[in-house]
């Protein structure tokens, strides 16, 4: 652990930082779970002062009973209670994602902040009618204002076990892309995903269809999507003279095949394949200068991901381990037909989009130390388009602490070694909190 958290190189002034973070995160809460004799005397001394603010479990129960207006020994509520949501309100929840960037050479956040509310996500979820369910996730951030992160209608009554969604959703490509960023066990998405899909992952607006199969006795699921376009239009590239999705071939299409096996009651494996394809705006050069418009070119990403999980059932509150790895390859059309304004001679125009394919991968592991504490590490390696395909790497370690299911504190250290330029150290702290109904934990 120390080797992961200790900043190497010239950053001696910050050597203490991860230890302070570790100390703050670990001491009080974990000592509550595993006190030892050396701490007991001081604990007892604190008891009197603390007692006023310590909610005793009996007091909680009595509070509940007082609210009920009935004595403790009395028989409980009778069957046939009224509805719990008589006004048919949707579930409303919010998740706050707070970041502190203590990196020695300046903030590594997109907006350059040292402390930021990276995003607040507001969710509205409910059954629409007997046939559909609606989910809306709005993202609010200083940088991007308010945006529709996801908004989809799910058909719940289709035959043949089909699930169909209409709207905007996280694209089912790869493993981690389907997880909200604030739910990750790392602070950011893996670099490979960030470079190929963007820092907030790949979303799409369109139709999503999925079906579960078990022809060989184990779980398989095929998910197909057709979306408005593959990814967002790159901000730094001029628009094309016609939308990239003018023809159906220019839409974004994806497929994901999940395969899942229980090895035994405590461990399981998932091995899945994904692919996504669509057209992207790519730059053109005219007589050596960047043209004022771009041309569509096909870009595809194919990949495979592997996840191994271990959680013994009886000790499942305290022990677990996960290993995950994902490989993605971006395949770029190298000689697309140039889309030029009418009556424009192609002479002098040169395609300036990517002229090679790029690969990237990461491996992540997380071990549960205590009921609330986890230690994780990730290694990223990817061919960097900005460095003509040379390989950049990053190694990072994370200490994650869950005061409850609804809050998370995380400290992370990362050593990022770009293909060109010197390596940098990143020190990041994250706090996330969830308000509202209890949401299922993604598997």
């Amino acid at each position, binding site marked *: 652990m120390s080797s992961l958290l200790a900043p190497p190189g010239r950053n001696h002034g910050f050597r203490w930082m991860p230890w302070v973070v570790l100390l703050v995160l670990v001491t009080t809460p974990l000592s509550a779970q595993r006190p030892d004799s050396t701490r007991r005397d001081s604990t007892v001394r604190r008891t009197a002062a603390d007692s006023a603010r310590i909610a005793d479990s009996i007091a909680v129960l009595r509070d509940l009973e007082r609210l009920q207006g009935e004595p403790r020994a009395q028989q409980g509520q009778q069957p046939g209670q009224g509805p719990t949501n008589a006004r048919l309100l949707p579930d409303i929840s919010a998740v706050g994602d707070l970041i502190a960037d203590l990196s020695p050479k300046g903030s590594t956040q997109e907006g350059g902040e040292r402390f930021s509310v990276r995003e607040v996500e507001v969710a509205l979820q409910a059954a629409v009618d007997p046939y559909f369910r609606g989910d809306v996730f709005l993202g609010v951030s200083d940088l991007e204002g308010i945006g529709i992160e996801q908004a989809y209608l799910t058909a*719940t009554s289709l035959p043949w076990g089909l699930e169909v969604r209409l709207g905007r959703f996280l694209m089912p490509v790869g493993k981690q892309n389907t997880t909200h960023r604030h739910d990750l066990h790392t602070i950011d998405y893996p670099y490979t995903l960030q470079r190929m899909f963007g820092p907030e992952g790949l979303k799409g607006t369109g139709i999503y269809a999925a079906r579960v199969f*078990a022809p060989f006795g184990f779980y398989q699921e095929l998910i197909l999507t057709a979306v408005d376009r593959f990814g967002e239009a790159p901000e730094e590239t001029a628009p094309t003279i016609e939308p990239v999705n003018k023809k159906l071939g220019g839409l974004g299409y994806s497929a994901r095949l999940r395969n*899942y096996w229980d090895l035994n009651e405590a461990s399981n494996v998932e091995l899945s394949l994904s692919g996504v394809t669509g057209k992207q705006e790519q730059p053109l050069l005219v007589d050596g200068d960047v043209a004022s418009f771009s041309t569509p070119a096909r870009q*595809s990403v194919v990949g495979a991901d592997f996840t191994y999980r271990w959680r013994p059932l*009886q000790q499942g*509150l305290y022990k677990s381990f996960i290993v995950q790895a994902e490989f993605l390859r971006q395949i770029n059309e190298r000689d697309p037909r140039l889309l030029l304004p009418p009556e424009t001679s192609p002479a002098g125009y040169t395609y300036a989009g990517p002229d090679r394919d790029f690969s990237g991968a990461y491996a992540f592991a997380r071990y549960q130390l205590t009921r609330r504490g986890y230690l994780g590490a990730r290694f990223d390696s990817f061919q960097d388009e900005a460095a003509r395909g040379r390989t950049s790497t990053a190694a990072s370690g994370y200490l994650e602490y869950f005061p409850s299911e609804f809050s998370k504190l995380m400290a992370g250290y990362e050593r990022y070694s770009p293909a060109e330029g010197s390596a940098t150290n990143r020190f990041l702290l994250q706090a996330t909190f969830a308000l509202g109904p*209890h949401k*299922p*934990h993604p598997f």
Partner: protein
Amino acid sequence: MGPKRIITVLALAAAFVGGAPYAGTSDAAAQLKVVTSTTDLYDIAKEVGGNKIAATHIGEGYQDPHFIEAKPSFVLQLRKADVWAFVGLDLEIGWMPLLLQGARNPKLQPGQPGYIDVSKVVPVLDMARGNVDRSQGDVHPLGNPHYWLDPENGRRIAKLFRETFSKLDPANAATYATNERAFVQRLDAAEKSWQSDLAKIKGKPVVAYHTSWRYFAKYTGMNIVGFMEPKPGVPPSAPHLAGLIQTIKQTGAKVIVMEPFYDRKMADLVASKTGAKVVILPPSVGGAKGLDDYIQLIGSDITKLASAL
């Protein structure tokens, strides 16, 4: 192979497997397929359904039912089920919605006869009517969900299963009624044999780890004077334990009851300071070796507790 071809191959493969028969469905085609969230509901369902149902369960008896993982293999169980019976009161809220959504089984949607929230037929304890928030820990605003630990609720659950199975499978209604009667008679007889142990327990102060023993306490008459958890679902803290030790000394509690899936270090620590005894009581069928049915479970917990007091 280009990406277009890869996607085409994946799609064709899926079309192929989609046409293949689902493994394991033919042998149990005539039986009602029942999936329950816990082993306790499973056992009572089996008692009532007998060989007319094919039952499976999601959670194991030695597992904390609050924190079951929504594994895709459970989705396969639910895909073909006729009945999904669950404890309710938000016990399964952390994993059930994912499984039901993944199963895409219209029979198991809320409002359908196969969607059985068992809590609807039991008197619920600890139901809050005022404002409840998470500063109170992992509270269940709809009430305490551990109601199966009161045998009277075992009877109610059996009655609910008899009614449900009879509605979905009227041809075997007489069998379900007979089976339910046999279960209740067996429970009645067991209860008579527990009376001497219950007399030993009644009124005795005990400490419980979690609020899961409230119904058991109501039935047995044991007096819970404190909990290891400072608030439901919150691990014991040192200051809370210091206060709890005082409570145990003042009340003379001799036993700390806890489930097998909690870390007993804290309970052992408190026991060592107070002279109390830590008693592991399985809260569910299968929570310990040999506890293979509901009546055995209740009887075993009563006997174990009585002998420790």
